């Protein structure tokens, strides 16, 4: 496909509805009182605001919120005020920022300047459609035209003007290109005739409820759609501006449409807007390659390569289960990897293949297949290669043959040199036990941290950075969103859940984006209960490499099943308004080696700084408890749960104890027990499932206290630990009943 060669070193064009008047026919310039700058986040609004206003801006919180709004007098007319509104993706609010922008528009503005990122026109047109429904005069600024040209995107501004009915100005705001023309275009601002068509039920309800809204200065179609979408944040405004019988009509219409459609009306409205915006963007855009732009003739070889990758994964999985004979197995494995590699090489070489992969990864059905292939490849890389090869070398050769014997030998010589019964001998004994004893800082804390966890998380962070850099994560969020919607959970709950795969502690903080306290509590509970953080996931994958192939399936099935069951029950008990997940999905990119290395090194540095001190602290706790004779009492006290319910050896209680500090440390303890042959595969899976359902780490516990209060944190903890043991116990019974060992 040919790349656009359009250059933006020269002044871009402005496309207006009318011919600009000649110097002889000076049109009267319009007077504006309030002008709002509106746009998606990160589209360059602030640069345009600076260019239109100059230096003296007032920054203040919008009344009743913590959202900052900047205002200043316009350069072209000091009596006009320009308001830089927070970046939004929709004018039907899903966040405080969006509510502030919506309220500014509701409070009355004479003109809106909509700033759009030219690289992502469809996202901007969703906002344009709402400005059109709001009947607000506006000008559309296509900013970052240089970056769009670099991406091979060319927009037909004249066609867009025709479709929208408003002036479209192309700019490169950071270089000041197009701003003079923007000033001129403001006087051509007008209402847009662009209309999104909604389902017939919604359209007839719109006609019905626009009547009580007639007489208001704000666009009735926009207001009516917000009412039908069940936007509670609009209620105070309606109470001030619409009589009670009118509000009753609006409520009736909302109930009727919701019942008739049987789905969340706001979700359907957003879907229609997004679809319409995408179609319009396609009509006016020429892109080198888009996710929807693969030629039909190229579909067949692409599909064949994708099929090869899926079949390759299935064949390898079947071989893991021992389906093929010992003679055929090596050949089958080569064929399986060839299938996966051919798809990866094609994705590396061909933009069409990347576009097709991006489309499949985010779609219903094919998205799950892509997820399966991704998980399988990550499992082979982390679980089989890193855990099997790297851990074996570092643990048994580096630490087992060199580090531990050298340190133990040195300390033994110090102990032997000290006079018997002298204070120096006692100190030497203590030092030896502290460093290389059964709960020694070197033999346990540092060996676990550097010999077991470090190589595994290095491989996992490497794989994670590749996924990040490729643009796969937003697609994963879309797939997870569909699953959560299926159980009735709010679409916004997806973000903290996906973030939890990185760090549960940070994800607990982002639960603030949920609208009601009940939803925030639910997300906090689900995060603490069953979303493994990246470090724990790495260790678990490492252990899976040594376990039979049914182990990851059982672990994944139980953890996901518990999450969905708890989420489903909680969603029934805690009904909340479902909101939409709006996410910019970038194209699938070829991961850059430099980026991947830097991200991996950055994560490893963070991990070592954060995790190793807690490993040392946990080991120190074990050492002190052992020295005080309390560890054996703890093991005895937990025997009914650990040995009775879970059927694990008493020694496993120590792994659970350090699991209170960090789940990954506890998982490393289980890994070590399995390596020494002290756990069977069934016992290892039971222990891992129980540990995964624990509260992630002490830091997470403190954040729950900070966010939800001590009482709630204690209640969540009091629920989670017994619940984890009950699930572990039930799994133990089920696995043993099925005859597994």
């Amino acid at each position, binding site marked *: 496909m040919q790349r656009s060669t359009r250059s933006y070193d020269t002044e871009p064009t402005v496309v207006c509805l009318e011919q600009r008047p000649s110097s002889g026919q000076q049109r009267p310039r319009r007077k504006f009182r309030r002008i709002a700058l509106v746009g998606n*986040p*990160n*589209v*360059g609004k*602030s*640069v345009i605001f600076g260019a239109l206003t100059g230096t003296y801006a007032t920054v203040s919180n919008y009344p009743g919120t913590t959202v900052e709004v900047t205002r200043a007098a316009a350069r072209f007319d000091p009596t006009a005020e320009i308001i830089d509104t927070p*970046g939004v993706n929709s004018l039907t609010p899903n966040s405080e920022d969006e509510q502030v922008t919506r309220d500014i528009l509701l409070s009355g503005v004479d003109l809106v300047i909509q700033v759009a990122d030219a690289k992502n026109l469809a996202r901007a047109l969703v906002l344009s459609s709402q400005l059109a429904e709001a009947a607000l005069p506006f000008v559309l600024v296509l900013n*970052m035209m240089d970056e769009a040209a670099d991406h091979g995107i060319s927009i037909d501004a004249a066609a867009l003007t025709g479709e929208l009915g408003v002036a479209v100005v192309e700019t490169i705001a*950071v270089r000041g290109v197009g701003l003079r023309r923007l000033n001129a275009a403001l006087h051509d601002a007008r209402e847009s005739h662009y209309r999104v068509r909604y389902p017939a039920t919604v359209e007839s309800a719109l006609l019905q409820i626009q009547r009580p809204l007639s007489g208001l200065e704000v666009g009735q179609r926009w207001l009516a759609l917000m009412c039908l979408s069940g936007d509670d944040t609009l209620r105070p405004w309606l109470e001030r501006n619409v009589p009670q019988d009118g509000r009753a009509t609006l409520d009736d219409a909302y109930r009727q449409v919701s019942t008739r459609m049987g789905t969340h009306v706001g979700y359907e409205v957003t879907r229609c807007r997004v679809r319409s915006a995408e179609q319009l963007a396609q009509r006016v855009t020429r892109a080198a390659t888009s996710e929807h732009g693969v030629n039909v003739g190229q579909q067949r070889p692409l599909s064949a390569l994708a099929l090869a990758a899926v079949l390759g994964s299935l064949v390898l999985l079947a071989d893991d289960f021992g389906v093929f004979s010992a003679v055929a197995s090596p050949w089958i494995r080569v064929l399986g990897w060839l299938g996966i590699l051919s798809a990866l090489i094609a994705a590396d070489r061909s933009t069409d293949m990347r576009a097709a992969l991006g489309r499949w990864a985010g779609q219903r059905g094919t998205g799950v297949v892509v997820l399966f292939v991704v998980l399988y490849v990550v499992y082979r890389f982390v679980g089989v290669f890193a855990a099997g090869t790297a851990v074996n070398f570092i643990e048994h050769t580096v630490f087992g043959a060199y580090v531990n014997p050298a340190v133990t030998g040195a300390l033994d010589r110090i102990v032997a040199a000290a006079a018997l019964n002298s204070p120096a001998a006692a100190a030497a004994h203590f030092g030896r036990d502290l460093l290389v004893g059964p709960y020694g800082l070197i033999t346990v804390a540092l060996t676990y941290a550097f010999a077991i966890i470090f190589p595994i998380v290095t491989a996992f962070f490497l794989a994670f950075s590749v996924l*990040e*850099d490729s*643009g796969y*994560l*937003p697609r994963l*969020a879309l797939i997870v969103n569909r699953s959560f919607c299926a159980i009735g959970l709010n679409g916004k709950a997806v*973000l*903290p859940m*996906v*973030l939890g795969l*990185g*760090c549960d*502690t*940070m*994800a607990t*903080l*982002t639960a*603030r*984006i949920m609208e009601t306290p009940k939803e925030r509590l639910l997300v906090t509970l689900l995060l603490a209960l069953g979303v493994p953080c990246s470090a724990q996931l790495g260790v678990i994958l490492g252990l899976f490499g040594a376990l039979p192939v049914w182990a990851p399936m059982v672990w994944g099935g139980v953890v996901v099943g518990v999450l969905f069951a708890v989420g489903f029950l909680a969603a029934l008990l805690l009904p909340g308004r479902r909101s939409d997940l709006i*996410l*910019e999905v*970038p194209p699938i990119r070829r991961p850059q*080696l*430099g980026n991947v*290395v*830097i*991200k991996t*090194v*950055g*994560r490893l*540095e*963070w991990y070592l*700084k*954060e995790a190793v001190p807690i490993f040392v602290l946990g080991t120190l706790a074990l050492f002190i408890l052992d020295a005080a004779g309390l560890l054996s009492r703890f093991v005895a006290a937990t025997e009914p749960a650990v040995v009775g319910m879970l059927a694990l050896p008493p020694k496993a209680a120590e792994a659970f104890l350090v699991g209170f500090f960090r789940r990954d440390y506890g998982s490393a303890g289980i890994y070590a027990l399995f390596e020494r042959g002290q756990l069977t595969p069934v016992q290892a899976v039971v222990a891992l499932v129980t540990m995964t359902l624990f509260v992630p780490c002490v*830091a997470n516990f*403190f*954040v729950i*206290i*900070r966010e939800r209060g001590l009482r709630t944190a204690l209640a969540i903890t009091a629920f989670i630990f017994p619940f984890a043991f009950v699930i572990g116990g039930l799994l133990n019974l089920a696995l043993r009943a099925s005859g597994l060992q």
Partner: protein
Amino acid sequence: MNHTDDDIVCPLCGTHYSEAEGRKCYSGCPLQRGCQLLACPACGYEVPAPTRITRLLSRWLGKQVASR
């Protein structure tokens, strides 16, 4: 938006933000002291903050790419 080479690009939502913007989450976090993570101001996705080692590495890798 004036994007610079030092901008962090959120791997989840694609937002460009500076290190200072990524640290705004610290105002509400009880664990901010010594925290090595930055959070995207738009979606909250966290990435490790640039360190001396990663800066050195990116400078070195940048040179490698440029010399090709």
